[in-house]
Structures are given as C-alpha cells and as structure tokens.
C-alpha cells in the first residue's frame, strides 16, 4: 500500500469557508489537490469547517497536518462585534485611549471626525503606581482601589479587561501584579495586559492594542476552542495550526491566549507562499502581488525574508487616523483596486477606478445580476483579455450587452468610444497598482528591477505583465493553481514567532554585553514557549535583527545580524552594516553616533510543511495545450491575434511566446507581445519580459 500524507488548509471568510487539501503519495511528485467551498456558519464557525471537510471528501481522522486561517478577528473589529471592555491604566492616563495621537490626516476637512475609542471614559479607570523608562519603580503599585473598579465593571456588564501601564515594555511587573489580582478577584473574566502582546514603547499604541485584543478575545477563544473540539470529535488527532499575521502558523493554544495576532492573517499566507515559491525556483527577491475582487495587496520579499513590522493600523487612510495594533504583521500595502472596482468619471471629466467595488452582488455588469457600473473585470472582458465564453471558468455566462452599456457610458462622459474607455480603465487600474508596488519597493529604497513579480489571487495574472513592464521587472511568475495559492502558502508555513523588544543602547565598546543579554533573554523565552509545545530547542531556528538609528533620530532601520554571540569586536561590522542599509534607503550617511533602540527576534521551527518535488520536462509541445486564438486588446501595445492556451494542460518544459492568453479555471493570464513563457518543474508559469 502506498503511504499517503494529507495536508489540509481551511480558511473561514466572511461569506465562504474554503478548503484546500494536498494529498501526496510517496514516489509521486504530483500532489492531488482537492478544493471545496461551503457557507460560513456564524456564530458556530466550526460547523462550516466540518462541512467543508465532508464536502471535499476529507476524513478528519486521516489528516496529518491542518492549518487554519480565519477573518473572525478582523471582522469582529471592523463590524464592531466585540465585547464590552474595561480598561485599567496608570493614574493620570485614563484618557490616553481617547486623546490618541491628535492627528488630522484629512487636514483641509473641517468636519473631520476623530475615531472614537473602543472603551468609553466611564470604563477607563486608573491605578496608582509608576515605572520609569528604564524599568525602575518610581512609585509602588497600589491595588487597593482594584476591587471597587472590578465591582463597577461587573455592574456595567464588562466582559473583558485590558491592563496597560506606562513603561510596562521596560518592566512588566506592575502589569503582572495587577493582572494576577484581577484573575484572583474575578477568575471568570477575560483579561489581558499590554506586555503580553508587545514589549515596545508608545503608550497609546500599546494601550489600544491591549484594548482591541481584549475586545475580540472572548469571541476568538470561543471560536478556537469549538474548532478544536469539533475536529477532535470527528477524529482529528493532531493539533491544528492557526495562521498568523507574521506569515507563520502558531499552535491553537498559544493563539487562544493572544488572538489579536490573527488580525491580518488573510494576506499573510499568500505572501509567505510567494517567499517560499521564490526560494524553490531560485528567486529570493520577490515582489508579491495579490489581486482579489475588491483590493490589491502587495509586499516585498528580500533575500527570501518577508518583512515583519509592528506599525499596523486598521481603518487608517488619507482621510482617517484609524486604530493601531502593535503586533507583528507582514509589511503590506493594500489599495481599493480589484476585479470588481468601479470605474467612474468625476464632474471635471477625470476617470477614476475604485476604491468603490461592485462586490459579489451585483458584481461587475457582466455578471448579469443588475450591475450597471463598469468594473475592471468588464474592461478586461471587453478588450478580449478575459474569454467571454469561458467567464469565471465557464460558470457564468458573460452579459456582454450589460458590459457594453456600462463601458460605453464611461466613454460618453470621456468623449471616446467604448474600446478607448476600456483601455483607459485598464491603464488607470494598472497605474494605481503600480503606485502601490512602488510604495513597497522604491519608497523603501529597493529597485523593482532587481525583483521577480509573483502574481496570484483571481486577478493577479491578468495585470501582472503590464505592471512588470511599467516597473522594469524582468520576470513574472504565476504560480500553479494561483487561485488557491494562499492555501498553499499556509501549508508551507513554519511555526513562527516574532519578538520585538525596546531596549536602548549606544553602539560603542562595552555595549555588546547588554545587547547579547537581551537577545539571549528573548531567545530563552522563545525556547521555553516552544518547549511547552513539545518542540525541542535544537529544532528552533533564530534570526536576530537589530533596530538601529543615528543618535537623536526616532525611526529605526532594521539590520539582520550574523548568527553567533554579539561581542564588542563585532560592533564595528554591525555599525558598518547599518550605515550601508541606511544609505541605500535614504541616499546619504552620517558621521554621527549610532544607537540601538531594540531588537526583533524571529524564532521558527518546521512543523510538517509540504515538500515540493521538481519534475523533469515532459517533452510535450505547447501546441497540445492550444485551444485556439482570438483578438486581444493590450491597451498601449495595440490589438493582436493571440494564442489561447488551456492552463490545465500545461506541462513542465513547455515554452511559447506572447501575445497569448492562458485560461485556467481560477484565473486568466495575459501575456503581452514579445514575452517568452516557460513552464517550470513545479508547474509555475514563468514569463520573461523582453530585455530592453
């Protein structure tokens, strides 16, 4: 009997719960891929997960590795479906949550509305006691008022408590004592202290993080425990892993304690997938682009490493300040530009695309569900880039009449015909996405020409080649099964934790000891956490980053340190690495003293991820996959008769050239004239742009 391994990724979204399973047999390099979809079942989300397993024919008892992603946290936040939170802070600082940072991003708008705090003033209470920024106690903690505060909270129906004291990043002992006392006095209440989530400074950001964490904690805990229970009941014997915002997975038990770390886990798995794919095909520098129905997201991967930051805000844009969540989140830029984004002309004859989206209902005009506004998808259909007879993988009959009407209406306002209007829509949409890609590359000091563009999601492959040409990128890779790429990423994830700790040190002789101490201390903390989950110390890998700046600056530049102890002898090479990184990003360097502000430690361990096997070229000619040809409008490059390939029939080693279209059930790949295509040993479509 052949030995089979089944890896499953389930993903709970707002509408659907998705399943992707990879079944690998020993000796067979091609995994069997199972996908299934069922309705999301609030509030008993685990039912949807169990349903989708049944629908996909996957017996939970046979599953070897299960990764799970969910939007439950972000949805609870944006839909304001969390619980009532009481906040306990340092005396003199109950209003920090409401004062926030005082900024008015929409600065000419005199009707700006400041975001309201998640805890009203009467539920924000103070406790005497004070630490200094060095972690010294300036005034002892006085918990004598706590019982009365808790009585009030009970009477007011509080379900979760957040504790945030000044300078707890430097010494958490006051927070620890208060938390212990809350748990003693009121064991049933959900409670979290800020230091459990982050050890970085900035009291508003840390306090808001603790508050939002408390706000979703009971909901997420309930969710996760019911998920674990449901799976166990159906015979699953392993432990599910939960997708995190830092591109790793973590154990269900750990996530249950601080569930806010799931907040941006959706995009994280795709970006991790892009990093892993890059390593697999020898492209460590990747610009990753995920285009969905309403938004496009992008992120930059350098030398195989995703960039993880703690400067994450929800609901923040040019018009509103939003709310900070100081947890490790993959550095990404998201814009309101997807397949469903609506094109519109303003009062002055200017064409815009997005951020409004036609959503799933009514959807693009071509869906024939009553949508009257032209979307990016309609423009792609109109220009022949999407096959009107194979719309949505053949599942939807394209309503071309509705599409024509919608696009012609745009053209009328612009004074051009429908073709020209559709080209305009595509060019504006592409420009929006190019600017987003520039934000993660050029704006961070990276030249996009040194990167490979990996495009996924339903719409990624449709625009990728045009974007690459605009940015000077030489190669685009569309992964095999691009539409379920995020699930693949989840199965490639390691158990990973990112530790950020604020600790000031001047980078000069004698400092190494203290720097090494904070790394060692944090590594010990990480090992202990991993060991508690049965992962021995030798399995845990560390990456040490230092956060440095010139003295007096505020913002830091992160530098990866070579492995091994930090010693005084190494400080000069660390400093040199900082100068170099800094100059690349900002065009100059200074002869000023350098200081360390903190560390970023990445701890990871492999927990049964998928191993991919490369296949040899089959020798089959690409003509075998050829479906026919049609006229396709490439906007700036004109209209060309283009070869149409069936994506399901492509095999390793096949090559062909643009102009061409590859049609896959989940996505359409647009290959511009002059591009050369090669299918690699993993079934990915590699597109080489002509050298200039």
């Amino acid at each position, binding site marked *: 009997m052949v030995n089979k391994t089944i890896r499953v990724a389930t993903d709970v979204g707002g509408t659907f719960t998705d399943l992707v399973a990879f079944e690998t047999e020993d000796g067979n390099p091609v995994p069997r891929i199972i996908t299934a979809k069922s309705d999301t079942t609030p509030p008993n989300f685990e039912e949807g997960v169990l349903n989708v397993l049944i629908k996909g024919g996957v017996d939970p008892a046979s599953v070897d590795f299960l990764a799970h992603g969910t939007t439950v946290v972000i949805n609870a936040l944006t839909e304001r479906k969390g619980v009532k939170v009481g906040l306990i802070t340092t005396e003199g600082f109950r209003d920090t949550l409401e004062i926030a940072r005082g900024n008015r991003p929409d600065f000419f708008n005199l009707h700006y509305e400041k975001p309201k705090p998640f805890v009203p003033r009467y539920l924000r209470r103070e406790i005497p006691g004070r630490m200094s920024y060095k972690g010294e106690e300036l005034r002892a903690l006085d918990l004598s008022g706590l019982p009365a505060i808790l009585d009030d909270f009970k009477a007011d*129906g509080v379900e979760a408590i957040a504790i945030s004291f000044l*300078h707890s990043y430097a010494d958490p002992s006051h927070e620890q004592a208060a938390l212990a006392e809350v748990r003693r006095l009121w064991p049933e209440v959900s409670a979290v202290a800020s230091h459990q989530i982050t050890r970085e400074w900035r009291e508003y950001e840390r306090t808001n993080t603790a508050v939002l964490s408390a706000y979703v904690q009971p909901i997420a805990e309930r969710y996760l425990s019911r998920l674990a229970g449901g799976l166990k009941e159906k015979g699953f014997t392993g432990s599910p892993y939960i997708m995190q915002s830092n591109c790793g997975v973590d154990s269900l038990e750990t996530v249950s304690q601080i569930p806010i770390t799931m907040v941006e886990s959706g995009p994280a798995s795709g970006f991790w997938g892009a990093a892993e794919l890059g390593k697999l095909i020898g492209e460590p520098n990747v610009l990753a682009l995920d285009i969905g129905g309403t938004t496009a997201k992008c992120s930059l991967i350098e030398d195989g490493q995703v960039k993880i930051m703690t400067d994450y805000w929800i609901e923040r844009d040019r018009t509103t300040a939003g709310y900070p969540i100081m947890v490790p989140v993959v550095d990404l830029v998201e814009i309101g530009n997807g397949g469903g984004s609506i094109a519109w002309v303003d009062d002055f004859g200017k064409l815009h695309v997005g951020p409004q989206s036609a959503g799933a209902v009514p959807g693009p005009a071509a869906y024939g569900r009553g949508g009257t506004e032209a979307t990016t998808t309609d423009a792609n259909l109109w220009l022949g880039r999407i096959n009107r007879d194979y719309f949505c993988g053949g599942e939807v009959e394209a309503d071309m009449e509705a599409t024509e009407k919608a696009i012609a209406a745009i053209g009328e306002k612009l004074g051009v015909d429908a073709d020209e209007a559709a080209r305009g829509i595509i*060019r504006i949409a592409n420009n929006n996405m190019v600017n987003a890609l520039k934000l993660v590359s050029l704006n961070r000091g990276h030249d996009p020409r040194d990167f490979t563009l990996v495009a996924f999601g339903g719409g990624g492959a449709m625009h990728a080649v045009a974007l690459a040409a605009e940015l000077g990128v030489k190669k685009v890779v569309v992964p095999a099964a691009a539409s379920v790429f995020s699930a693949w990423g989840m199965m490639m994830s390691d158990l990973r934790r990112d530790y950020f700790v604020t600790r000031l040190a001047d980078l000069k002789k004698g400092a190494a000891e203290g720097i090494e101490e904070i790394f060692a201390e944090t590594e010990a903390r990480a090992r202990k956490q991993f060991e508690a989950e049965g992962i021995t110390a030798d399995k845990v890998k560390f990456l040490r980053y230092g956060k440095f700046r010139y003295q007096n600056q505020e913002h830091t530049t992160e530098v990866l340190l070579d492995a091994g102890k930090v010693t005084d002898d190494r400080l000069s090479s660390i400093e040199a690495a900082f100068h170099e990184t800094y100059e690349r990003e900002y065009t100059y360097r200074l002869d000023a003293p350098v200081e360390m502000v903190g560390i970023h430690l990445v701890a990871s361990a492999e927990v049964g991820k998928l191993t991919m096997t490369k296949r040899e070229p089959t020798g089959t000619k690409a003509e075998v996959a050829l479906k026919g040809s049609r006229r396709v409008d490439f906007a700036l490059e004109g209209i060309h008769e283009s070869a149409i390939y069936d994506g399901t029939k492509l095999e390793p080693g096949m090559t062909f050239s643009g102009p061409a279209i590859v049609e896959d059930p989940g996505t359409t790949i647009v290959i511009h004239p002059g591009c050369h295509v090669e299918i690699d040993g993993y079934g990915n479509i590699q597109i080489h742009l002509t050298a200039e």
Partner: protein
Amino acid sequence: MTNLPNDPITLEIIQNSLQAAADEMFAVMKKTAMSSIIYEVLDMGTGITDAKGALASSGAGIPAFVGVLDKAVKVIVGKFDKPGDIEPGDVFATNDPYWGGVTHLNDIIVAMPVFAGGRIIAWTANIAHNSDVGGMAPGSLTGEATEIFQEGLRLPAIKIISKGEPIRSVMEIIKTNSRMPDVLEGDVWAAIASVRIGAKRLVEIAEKYGVGTFETAMSSFMDYGEQVSLKELAKLPKGTFELSEEQDDGRVFNVKITISDTEFIVDLRDNPDQSVSPVNTSRDGVMVSAQMLFKSLTDPYSAANEGSFRPIRLLTREGSVFQAKEPAPIGFYYEIELRVYDLMWRCLAQHMPERLAAGHFASVCGTFIGGIHPDTGRQYTIIEPQLGGWGANRDRDGNSAIFCGFHGETYNCPAEINEARNGLYVDRMELNMEPGGEGKFTGGRGIVMDYRVRADNGFLTVGYTRSKFPAWSLDGGREGSPNYVKVIRKDGSEEKYSFVSELTTHTDDVIRVITGNGGGFGDPRERDPKLVAEDIRNGLITLERAKEVYGFTGSDQSQRGGTDERESAEDHVSEPGRRQRGA
C-alpha cells in the same frame, strides 16, 4: 510607448505619480529626521512645483505648509536668473520670511531643480522646523526679540549644494550657528535626501512620457484645481462680510471678505502697524491662511495646487502686522496666521454654518521646554504644539484633543518617549474638565498635561493665544475655555502664563499645559437629555452643572442602577469601518 501627448489617461497617470513622489519625499523626511518636532510631530511638508514655482502637488503634513514651498521657489527662481546660475545637482535653501521663507527662521526650506531634456521642468521642495538655528535664545524662538537678527541665522535664498557637491563652507556656517549642530546637520541632510529622491522620481516620469507631456500634465492639473474651486465658489453665499475682533494683547484685528462667483477677496488693509515684538507675519503668511480656509470651504478632499487658489485676492498694507517689513521680528508668526485664519472662519461661519463649525482652541500653543537630562547629561529641548478642543458642528459634538487648524497629519509625543528623551516626567495627560463649550452640541475637550522637571536651571517658553478670549460659539452655544500654562513650583506656589520667554525652572516644578475646549453650537437647553446623561456618566460634567446649564432633570447614572448597560455595548464606537488601506 507614448501615444498622444494630451491623452487624458496619460496626464492622469502623471498626476498620480506626482502625488506619489510628494508622498515619498514626506516618508523619507519623516524617517531620517533627528528632531522630534520633525519625525514625531511631523512639523514639515513636501511639495513639487513647476519650473516657475507654481505649486503642482503637495505631500502630507500640515496644511499651513502647503502654500509655503511655491513662494520660496519663486524667490529662488527670481534671484538666480542668469544662465548657469542653476545647474543640475544644485540644491537651494531659504529660511528668511523676507526672502521667500514665508514663516520663521526655524523653518528651513530646501529646494532642488529637476532637469530633463536640457531644461528645468520642475522643483522639489521641503520645509521642516529645525530645533535651533541660533539667535538670542535656545530654540531660537523668544518673545524678547525685537529684530529678526535675534531670531537666528538668516539664509536669504542661497545655494547649499553645487552640482551635487555640498558647499562645505556654507554647510559649516549653518551647522556652527546652531546650539544643536549635529541635529541641525542631520535634519538638513534629511531634507536634502527628500528633495533628491523626489527629483529622481520626476526625472523618471519625464523620461518615460516625454518632457512636453510632463509639463502639460502639470498645467492641466492646475487648471483642474481651479475648476474645482470655481465650481464650489459658485455655491457659496455672495456678498461682503466683515468682522472686528479684539485680541488677547489688546490689538483689534479687522477683516472684510467679498465673495463673488469668481473671486474670494480678503481685505486685511485696515489693521494695526507691525509690532516690535515677534507677533508679525509676512504677507505670504496671511496668504497661506487665506488659502487654507478657502480650500476647506471649497474642496477639502482633493490635493491642493496653484490652480486651487487662483480665485483668491489678498489685500494687505505694507508695514502692518500682516505685511511686516524688515527687520521686524517674526518668530511667533504662526499665532498671527492662526488669528487671521480664525478671524476669517468666524467672519463666515454664521453665514454658512453647514460648512463651518464653531471656533476651536485655535492656537498652536507652542511649548518650548529645555534643560539638562539628568540621566545623560545632554541638553534636551522640547518644541511642541499642543492638542486642544474643536468647536461643535450644527449636528454633532466637536472633536476632543486634536491639533489646531494650522497642523494636520501631526502627532503628539508619547509620554514614554518624552521621558526617555527629555529630562522630565509626564505626570498626567488627560482631557480638560473645565467648564466651557456647552451647547446643543458641545465643543470638544482640550487637554491637561503635567510635565515635572527633573533638574535645576531649565527653561520654559510659551506663546499661546485665545488665552483671554476663548473659542467662540455659534447659535446660542457657550464659549469654550482658555489656553494657558500654569507653573506649580515645588513649594506649591502657582504662576499662570500665556506668553513667557525663558522662564527658569527647577527640580520638581510642574509645568501644567492647559488647552481650551472648543465652542458650543446651539442652546444648551436643547441638548438631548440622553447625551447629557452620557456626559455625566463619563465624568465630563457634574450633575449639578448639568442641571444648571442644560436644565437636566434625570438622575446621575454614574451612581449605577437599573439602566440596561448591555444595549449600549456598541453605542460608544463608531459605525463599522472600512478595512485598512495602505495607499
């Protein structure tokens, strides 16, 4: 690759790219600056102008800096008008209000010409507040100054980098004249990095689409700005509106605004002569005030450019407080700009209450604290604007604790960072509970912040307005509350200030910053009793005062009782928001 030069889609793409470049310049400056007033407070701005200095695009930052950069570039272009005066790689600087600097000497503007196709096609420019540029007082700002010479080193629109090479002697003069030479040098270099990156992006755009198309895009963008402004201008009530207002210092300021379908005329000629104190502004400064209010009235949502401001006509009198002549000191110009801004706002608010709320605390409340940090032995200087209360709208309460109309994408300094960097403790930072701003809709709250000084022989300088006359109300609401500073000495004695320069402070003195509540809108007796009950529960007002001011007849719910708290679990947060957008 290009098609028609006037293809509107191409022009739109270029315009978006200009915006992206201005934003990128802003991001670079923010990340590399050394003064907390730049990197944390973001007292800075970035912009792009055309070859002549007309504003094409501006980055984030503060509204009061949006209209500054173009005026500086125009002066540079006028001064360096001979062939060969301006060459590729050059960088210029000015900080002098009498040389296009608009504001005060602390704000150094750095500008770089962008060359493509053998000619200048644009300028990238940057302005930021520097912590110390010399002069008679630490931080360079003092109420004692009687001439601009006492306010710091003057850079009268000069070249600082020639063909890519820093002019070493000039750089050394700039650095040596500062009490914080390393910080100043770092900040100037951050500004240079910012304009260089912007220039690089513009060259790329121009090379890609062609210089002609690039220039067409810029001018059509300005025409678009003008169309947008004119369209909204047509919707404003027409006529001439006037207002006189007494200031805290006893001066009376007058404004006359005439609105027609095509013009927005601000007449400030009838105003006092310039002062010997640094409470004057350049004409460019009041133009910025007029531009800010005009933009807010007509089109607050799109980016501002030269065209947006074309309908404005400004009338001032040379030698007056609003068009000061050399060598009038000008350090606290921003309070004067704010006074003009607030004066115009108040003048128009009663005629267009749907567009304008009641008055806000309307002062930068610039606070300067310095001394020796006892932990490091190094000199520290805090330079910060304060948060305060905004006025009520006709349909909702005003915002609490945000920056004044002069500032925008500006951040306050976290107490945790403040304590590490500066030699003091922040004992409290909370909302101001003083009465004021009551109404059918209430003004937002100001703040109370206590700085406890940790060493002897420190200093305090402040210059607050709206200290005697607080935020004005509308339609029967009550006035807000004043902005001021209280110094509570270690022995318990108290001093109160709104303007003070270099006051000496000692260990355990508390500097208490108090900023005003915004003005109220409508008769307090018309306020929804449910909102009054909520205010009582939140401790914003006592039951007694609620009875007295609002005629409140209910009980104090903060005493807890049979109210159903559960149903209000969601009422305290705003409606479901959108997902984060990164761009």
